[in-house]
Every structure is written in C-alpha cells, then in structure tokens.
C-alpha cells in the first residue's frame, strides 16, 4: 500500500494541471461547427433510413423538391415552382436547371423518379414508403401486387418537369416532398457501388454540404459545397462526433471541444447546472414518446389488459423525473396540432386499472405470463421505463422485466418481432396529425405493435383526404380516442423537449419543433469579444411552449380546395 500515496499525489497534480489548462483552451475552431451525433448513423441511404441520427446528417447533405423553413412551412428548393391541378390530385413540379450534383451533373426529374421507384420497390423494404401511399398505385407497387412501375403516379415529363398524380387530394403532400425518402438519387451511383454507395468516396449529393470523411464509430466530416445552388454556406466544415456517453460529450463541450450539444449529449442531472446559463435553450418538440404493446403476444392480445396498463400510468411524474419541461400526455396527437384533445387519452386511475385487469381475467395480476419491456440504451429512457415499471408494480401489482439493447439492435428487434412491450418515440415528419396517426394504420411499416383496426384505418384515411378543416380535426380526434382510450395498442407518455447548450460564437442557429438541424445558415464568430446578451435573445430562435409551436401547416396557394390554417393550429388553451 506504500505506493498508493505517491500515486495519489501524482494524480492530484495531474488534475490540478489539467484544470489549469482547461481555462485557457476554450475557443472556436475557425469556420468549423463541432457537434455530437451520439451514435453511428445506421445508414446514410436517405431512401431507407428512418432514424433521426441518420437524418440529421442527411438534412445537411441533400435537398429535395421543397425545403423546410424554420417555421416548418415548405419553400421551393430543387423545384422552383409547382402547379396544383385537378383539384389537388395532380402536381407538376418545375425543376431548377442550376441545381448540380456534387460531381457536376445536373439534378433532373429522372433522378427523382429513380429514387421513388427504388424506395417503393418491395425488395428495398423502405419503412418510410408509406408516406407515398397517396400517390396513385404506390401502395399496390410497394406491396408487390403491381409489377409495372409505369402505372405508379410519378413521371418525368421532361428532364426538368416532374408530374405526380395522387389518388386523393391531401393537405400535407407538399410537406412530404421535403422529406428524405423523396430526395433524388443517382441511379449510376447507387447501382454502380451497391451497398457502399453512401460511403464518402462514392456518394453524390446536392445539398449545402458534402460528405468528405466518415470514420465509422468516430466522426463524420462535412465540408461546404461550393456548387450549392443557394450559394456556398458560411460554415467551412461540420464535424459530427459519435460520443455515445452523454457525460463524456458534456465534458467535451465544457472543454471547448464541441460547440453545440443537445439532449443526446446532455445528461439529465446536468440540465440543472445550466438552467440559468445563457448557453442553455429549451424548446418543445413535436415528438411523442410511447410504450407500444405487441398485440400478437399474450397477454396484450386482450384489449382490457392494454387499457389497464395504460390507465395505471401517472404521466405527471415524467416531467418531474426528467426535469426538462416535458409535457405529460396520454394521447397521441400533440397539443399544437389539429384534433388534439387532452381527453382523447385515458386518465390515470389505479382503481379502474385494477378493475380492468380483473375483468380481463387476471385479478391482481395473477395468471399473467412474464412480461418484458424492451428499451434502447439511453439514460433518460431508462429512468422513464423504471418509473413505469414501478407504477405498474404499485398500481397494478404486475412485475415487468426491463431489457435494454443497443440502438441498432433495438431497431432491428422491433422491426423483426417486437417483444410484448417496447419503448419508442415518434417525431413529426411534417407538422400535421397525419404523421402521427398514420403510424398505427395496418399498412404502416413502423407499426411494430401489429395492431390492425379497420375503423381506425378508415378514420385516418378519411381525415387525410378531408378538405374541411373542422371536419378533419374531428375525424383525427375520433381516431385518437379510438387509438389511445379504447383499443390502446400503446401507452402514450410525454412529449419531449429539446435541451441545447451552444457556445456564443455559434451564430445564426435556429430551432424548430421538428428538431431539423439545418446548419447552412450558421456561422462561427471567432474574432470579436463575445457578449452573451445579444446572443441569447436575437440569434437563437425557437418556440418556447408546446401549445404555441408556430406552424403554418398548409398554404392555400399550394392546395386550392383546402381551407387556410393561418392560426398556427392553436388548439388548446391548457396552460403548461
């Protein structure tokens, strides 16, 4: 034990010296934004990827026909304009001629047709293909019933004109054209390099940044695209690091090695320390968290058991545990979207839950098979599922076993055969209830609950094509009640918020409720002395309340028959 003392002394000196160094080195890397992605993106193939890690990178690599503004409306992008014909059932997009791929070739309408064909081909197994089911024959082609792609309603009229025919007018179609599965693809690249086409040495993109380096499990580097048609972005470089452990990422931020971190890199307890810091920002997200039941597995094939579990959860504890201004919610549609009603979901009622479980034939949980809940390995998720486990034990006398898996494995498990219960979340693809509701229709590839309900499918189908806003909202509300209260293939828990720490030299950063992290407007101010005051108010912007998420979902110019929704979809007055 004698060597211990000198060892301690040396360690102490090292710590002190280290602390001294830290003070000096916090400064930006000129022209470079350093952020933490948190994990290796499963794929950068934008036609098939479904997770937001991949999408965060893709959003800065690619642009589609349209592009989101930060207020979540869509603006022209590759398509300079479009005509809406036949009462909203036919779209003709006029493409810009100056949009170039990174190898210098122009982006043409054929690239879009190829991307959509590949995405809808059954063998590609793209989970997001359901987004395009409003296109004529898209579902038939995707499900293999139709072999001839010519009959699908997308066609290149010439090199720069693209025509899309829909089977019904849908309010949100223009939003879908801004999503990653709708981005164009180069047939020669994808087919020439097969599985490795999305590696930096092969990939060809058209967005503000280029993928120049991908060191797997370590770092992705993007550099400014000088050919980008809106002009070269101010940032020279973006470095996405893949530090999975939030505490490590926070330490890197504090040491000045990262410029920007969000929830993925922000340990729950540390939010407390930064609550009053001008570097801290909190804003609400259109992201609903839930625990799904696999309804093909016992005991959750029984509706009463599912209802009992859902009624036994007191959602109010989640914001207290996570302490990041989460919004407890027992229904699936978020408060800022049409059709929201706090009463669509079940209220917390332990006595009723016990009665439901007894009615299902399991009084006091007796006779239930062992129940497992699968969750991805993340600190905040663990806290939430542990809290639920405890509530189920206390309120329903049911023991649930928790199992965690690494992110990619978790996604694969849910896709192949989800366990009895699994924890997941859904972030809006576009600011419309459709993006949430379509998740649980029987045809949807993301519906891991295997729950199939004809009434629900019909309601969502009718709501999607309903031109009258009030009627549409009512239909969604009815579907939401059916989903959360009556059939309950899922337990809705809370709406997430985004928590950000950003260094003052990062300028021009804007936040939005869909958590789209576009960095083409960002620049690094590395010369002048920094003042926090101007920065916190003026430069970073975003909504601050769940009910007042600012969105103008649909503009009448785009869809003639559907009424304007200028009020920003404010539905609820419930204070938060």
């Amino acid at each position, binding site marked *: *034990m004698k060597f211990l003392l000198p060892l301690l002394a040396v360690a102490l000196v090292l710590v002190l010296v280290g602390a001294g160094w830290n003070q000096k080195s916090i400064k930006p890397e000129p022209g470079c934004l350093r952020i933490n992605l948190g994990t290796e993106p499963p794929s950068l193939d934008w036609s098939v990827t479904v997770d937001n890690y991949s999408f965060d990178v893709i959003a800065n690599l690619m642009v589609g026909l349209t592009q989101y503004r930060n207020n979540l409306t869509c603006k022209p992008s590759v398509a300079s304009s479009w005509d809406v014909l036949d009462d909203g059932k036919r779209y003709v997009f006029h493409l810009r001629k100056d949009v170039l791929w990174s190898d210098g070739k122009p982006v043409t309408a054929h690239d879009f047709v190829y991307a959509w064909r590949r995405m809808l081909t059954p063998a590609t197994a793209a989970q997001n293909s359901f987004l395009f089911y409003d296109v004529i024959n898209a579902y038939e082609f995707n499900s293999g019933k139709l072999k001839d792609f010519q009959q699908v309603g997308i066609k290149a009229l010439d090199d720069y004109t693209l025509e899309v025919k829909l089977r019904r007018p849908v309010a949100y179609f223009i939003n879908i054209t801004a999503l990653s599965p709708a981005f164009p693809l180069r047939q020669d690249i994808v087919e020439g390099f097969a599985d490795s086409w999305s590696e930096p040495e092969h990939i060809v993109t058209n967005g503000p940044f280029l993928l120049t380096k991908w060191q797997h499990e370590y770092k992705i580097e993007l550099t400014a695209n000088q050919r980008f048609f809106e002009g070269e972005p101010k940032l020279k470089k973006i470095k996405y690091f893949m530090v999975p452990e*939030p*505490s490590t990422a926070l330490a890197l931020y504090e040491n000045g090695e990262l410029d920007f971190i969000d929830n993925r890199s922000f*340990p*729950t*307890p*540390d939010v*407390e*320390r930064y609550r009053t810091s001008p570097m801290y920002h909190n804003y609400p997200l259109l992201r609903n968290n839930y625990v799904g039941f696999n309804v093909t597995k016992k005991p959750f094939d029984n509706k009463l058991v599912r209802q009992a579990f859902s009624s036994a959860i007191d959602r109010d*504890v989640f914001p*207290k*545990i996570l302490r990041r201004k989460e919004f407890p919610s027992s229904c699936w549609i978020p408060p800022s979207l049409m059709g929201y009603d706090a009463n669509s979901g079940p209220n917390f009622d332990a006595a009723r839950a016990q009665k439901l479980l007894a009615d299902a034939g399991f009084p006091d949980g007796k006779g239930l098979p062992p129940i497992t809940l699968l969750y991805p*390995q993340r*600190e905040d998720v*663990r*806290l939430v*599922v*542990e*809290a639920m*486990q*405890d509530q189920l*034990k206390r309120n329903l006398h049911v023991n649930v*076993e*928790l*199992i*965690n*898996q*690494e992110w990619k494995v978790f996604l694969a498990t849910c896709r192949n055969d989800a366990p009895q219960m699994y924890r997941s979340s859904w972030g809006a693809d576009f600011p419309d209830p459709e993006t949430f509701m379509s998740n649980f229709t029987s045809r949807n590839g993301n519906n891991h609950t295997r729950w199939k309900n004809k009434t629900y499918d019909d309601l969502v189908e009718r709501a999607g094509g309903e031109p009258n806003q009030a009627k549409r909202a009512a239909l969604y509300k009815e579907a939401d009640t059916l989903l959360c209260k009556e059939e309950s293939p899922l337990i809705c828990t809370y709406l997430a918020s985004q928590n950000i720490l950003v260094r003052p030299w990062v300028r021009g950063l804007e936040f939005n409720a869909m958590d789209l992290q576009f960095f083409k407007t960002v620049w690094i101010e590395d010369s002048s002395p920094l003042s926090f005051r101007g920065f916190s108010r003026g430069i970073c912007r975003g909504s601050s309340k769940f009910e007042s998420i600012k969105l103008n979902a649909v503009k009448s110019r785009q869809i003639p028959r559907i009424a304007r929704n200028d009020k920003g979809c404010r539905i609820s007055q419930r204070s938060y």
Partner: protein
Amino acid sequence: MSTIEQLSTKRIESGNPIITVWRRLKRIPTAVVAWVIISVMVAMAIASLLGVPLTPYSFDQTSTTLLADPSWQHLMGTDELGRDLFTRVIYGSRLSISIGITTAFVALVIGTIYGATAGYCEGKVDSLLMRGVDIAYSLPDLLVMILVGVLVGRGTQGILFALALVSWMGTARLVRAQFMQLKHEEFIEAARACGQPVFPLICKHFLPNAMGPIIVALTFIVPSAILSESTLSFIGLGLSPPACSWGTLAADGWRSLRTHPHLILFPSLFIFLTVLSFNFLGDGLRDALDPRTRLKK
C-alpha cells in the same frame, strides 16, 4: 504489515491449525478491522437476502423526493426516481458480495484441483492441462462473459457462471507453480520416503504450504469479480433494472457526479471499503497461514 516477531508468542500455538491461524490473525490490527468490515457487509447482504427490513423503504420504492441530499430521513439521500439510496446499497451488497465470494470460491476449488493435478503429475499431463489453461487465458474475458451471458441467460446465475468461468485460470497456474516448487522440498521427500499415500500427502503437506499465495490471489479475485459484474451490468448483459448491485449503482451515479455526488459517493465507498478490506484480510491471512513462521519459533 505485522512482523513475524509479533506473532511468535507462546499462547497462539494450539493443536487445531484453524484456531492457531485465528489467534495469529487477531494479533494483526488491520486484518481485524478488515474482518469486522467484511463481516458487517456479509451480514448486511444476508439480511437483505432473507428480507430483514434494515430501512423503512423497499429498494424499488419510488417517491416524490427526487435526488434528495443525505439527511436523517434518507441516510444516503435518494436517486433520480426518489428511491432511498441506503436501501439500494444494502440491496446491492447482496449481489456484489455474493458474486465476489462465490466467484472466489469456485476459482479456489476448480483452480486448486486443476493446478494440483498438473503440478503433482508433471510431464505430459502437466503440459496438456497447462495448454488448456493457456487457451482459456487467451480468450478475452469480456467475450467469454458475453457469450455465456447470452447462452445461460440474463440475471444472477448468468453472471455467476460467466465470472467463475474466467477467473479460475490464475489460481490454477499459481497452485501448479507452488506444487512444482514444493515437490522437491526436503520435507516432502521425507514424507514420501515414510510411505505417505498421495492424497494425504497433498492435503497435509502440499496444500497448507501453498495456501498463502492462493489466499492472497483469492483476495484479488473478489474485488475484480465485483468490478467485472458492474461491467456486465453496464453493457446490458447483467442485471435488469430495478435490481441493482454496487457496480450498477456506481455506473448510474457517475452521470450525476457534478450535480449530485452522493449518488456515486456511497456505492463507490462501499466498493472501496470491501476491496480494501479483502486486501488487508488477505495480507493478514498470508502471515497467519505461513507455516514457515511457525517453524521459526
């Protein structure tokens, strides 16, 4: 540490070797303190296993007092879900201590038998057995533990089995080396010349003389098993929540190091105390067991 002179007092010798060792051990203060601490920990673990309520809370009982600092109501404070940390530390001792001790015991039994066979037989048997150990050694511990974890299943049995499987090789090598060294000692040759059969020869002459280094090695297996268990739990192959061990408590607690240091302080303090105590006890036992100190008198 204690010196041989300290031990060579008249009253400690007795006919029963266990009593002799105990009396010798009592003369070493650090070993006594370590013995007391280990006894308390083990008693705590056993009490928790038998369901004796040492605190008014249950280990998985959440409350609304989240992340409370240590107070009279919650001796070690509460965690992120409002669970009493003291209760969880006691509950955690059950797994950590039992894993440490069981692993050491299994390593002792398997390692000694294996090493004794190799060391005593020498020649072809020895090289065959030792190549087996070399192969087992060359497999990465973590890989073996993950594979076993997947095969046996999650939870305590899986962890115990996996840890036992990777921890006996060191003991086997040690015992073999001791045996080979002892084999050519004069007292062994004398015993053999007197016609002592093999089994009593091993039990009476080899083992007591080889025991010192073995015990010291075992005291290192205990803490390393406690730490390996926390690694397994950390990568998701060990315990599933809300069950906890000191390892998982520390792993969860270190995230809050900056804001709520009590969450990592107490579990690590218990790990630290246990590991240190086992080391001191091992040191003391080595001195107390060494037959050479007895001869010197």
